[in-house]
């Protein structure tokens, strides 16, 4: 089974080589005539104003954190989805499944389903909290004026 990952690795190397090769090879016949105008950053034909690497509000900092939570959640759901069928008939088919799963033979499909239901309800509460807090809005209320802070 793990030898399959050797194929992935080799394919990845070939993919990189095939992408890099035309860049390197055609550099021999490509024209190279740089000028200061040509190398200046593109700003719709105007001379660039200021630094492009400035601080700006990326607006989705909290969304990033929520993303990590839900991404990990999906990670937990994948194995559940894979073994779910095995529990359908009260664990009769688990003989074919991996060793550790045999300990769970008493579990029926409904119990396995309810477990995922509880897991999802917890997550849904989290989503509802974030939603109610307004972190999923792109346009939020701007910071309160100084008179409100007093």
């Amino acid at each position, binding site marked *: 089974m793990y030898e399959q990952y050797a194929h992935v690795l080799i394919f990845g190397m070939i*993919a990189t080589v095939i992408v890099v090769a035309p860049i390197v090879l055609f550099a021999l016949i490509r024209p190279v005539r740089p000028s200061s105008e040509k190398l200046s950053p593109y700003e719709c034909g105007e001379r660039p104003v200021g630094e492009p*690497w400035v601080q700006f509000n990326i607006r989705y900092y909290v969304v990033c954190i929520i993303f990590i939570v839900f991404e990990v959640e999906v990670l937990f*759901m994948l194995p559940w989805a894979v073994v779910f069928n095995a529990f359908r008939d009260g664990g009769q088919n688990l003989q074919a499944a991996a060793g550790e799963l045999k300990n769970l033979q008493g579990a029926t499909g409904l119990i396995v389903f309810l477990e995922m239901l509880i897991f999802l309800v917890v997550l849904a509460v989290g989503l509802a909290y974030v939603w109610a807090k307004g972190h999923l809005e792109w346009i939020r209320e701007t910071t309160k004026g100084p008179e409100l802070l007093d």
Partner: protein
Amino acid sequence: MYSALYQLLYSTLETLLNIPFWLFGSHVPHWLVFIHVSLILGGVCMMGFITVLALFSVWAERKVSAYMQARLGPMEVGKYHGWLQTAADAIKLLLKEDIVPAGSDKFLFLAAPVLVFSGSMISYVVIPFGPHLKIADLDLGVFYILATSALVVVGVIAAGWSSYNKWSIYGGMRAASQYISYEIPTALHLLPAVLMAGSLNMSQIADSQAYYLGDPSQPFYKDFSILNWAVWPWINPFATVSFILYFIASLAETQRTPFDLAESESELVAGSHTEYSGIRWSFFFLAEYADMFVVSALGTVLFLGGWHGLPLIPPVLEFLLKALFLMFVMMWLRWTLPRLRVDQLTYVCWKVLLPFGFVTILGSGLWQLYLVRTPAGWVAGTVLMAVLLLAMSRIWKSEPVPRDGEMTAAAASA
């Protein structure tokens, strides 16, 4: 007729695979067989396929757009409807000057297109084009594709950051927000299909939707399983909904309209690849089309039965037909839907696709427990989907509710 073709193809592949045995007799080094198989099958065939596919889908996109706007599109190069246009474009781009703007982060700037294109290429490793036609048979196939699709994001952000350009950095940041939003619904809406198949292995998922009429042990059997695909409501109506929502989320994953905010021409010039020229620019372009095929192929395998279903068509051709049809739908949508606003983008992902993902997973779990492939399930699924479609058509037909300060069409004409 087809079986003769298969035998020809099969014996060609067999001959190629036997070359190391001829060279070394029976004492073939193990590593050599590995590298040999991967090189010949994987490397050369697949790379050729991806390049040709990407080039011709660029041409197809231009032709589809042209016909939808009552134009002709490219007509000159190659005589027949300009079919060699993109090949000519590729040669032009290879010979164009490769500009690295002053002040840019050189290493990242040069590495980003490689990361983007080879990142989308290595997703092809697990795609099964036919019963035995795949490079690596990973048990984690679906998960692998979800993981490698994240590599493209790294490339796009690197391109945006390193270009030393305001448009690029905004485009890169937008792409980042879009990717991290839409990766979750994509994965969530794939889960019902994984749950029904009970596997993450792409070939096993496709096989789980097969329904054999005849002897499946024959090398190139044909099955008639078109009614057994995971997408049909009589199998599982929640999977039907999931397929549609997966398709929407994958549009956002591949930065296609209506989710092409990261490279919206009217706002950000070209997004993260504004500063790229020549061959490096073309890699960003080709990667977009390569990605479109990956998500289409994933949808085909998980929901449309992979290479199973249609009688009398060879499996590989059938798989390509389905995947290319999904790509055509993507091109079609480009000229049908307007671009979303950036706040609507996050709204659709977090407040529509994600809650629906929870519902479809739980729903398809229950369906799988009690109703899947039972007579009651066939009837209930069909009726449920019919009711849903009717309700949706009622909603579409109804007059939109005017917002504050907005006039309805009737009021405006009065």
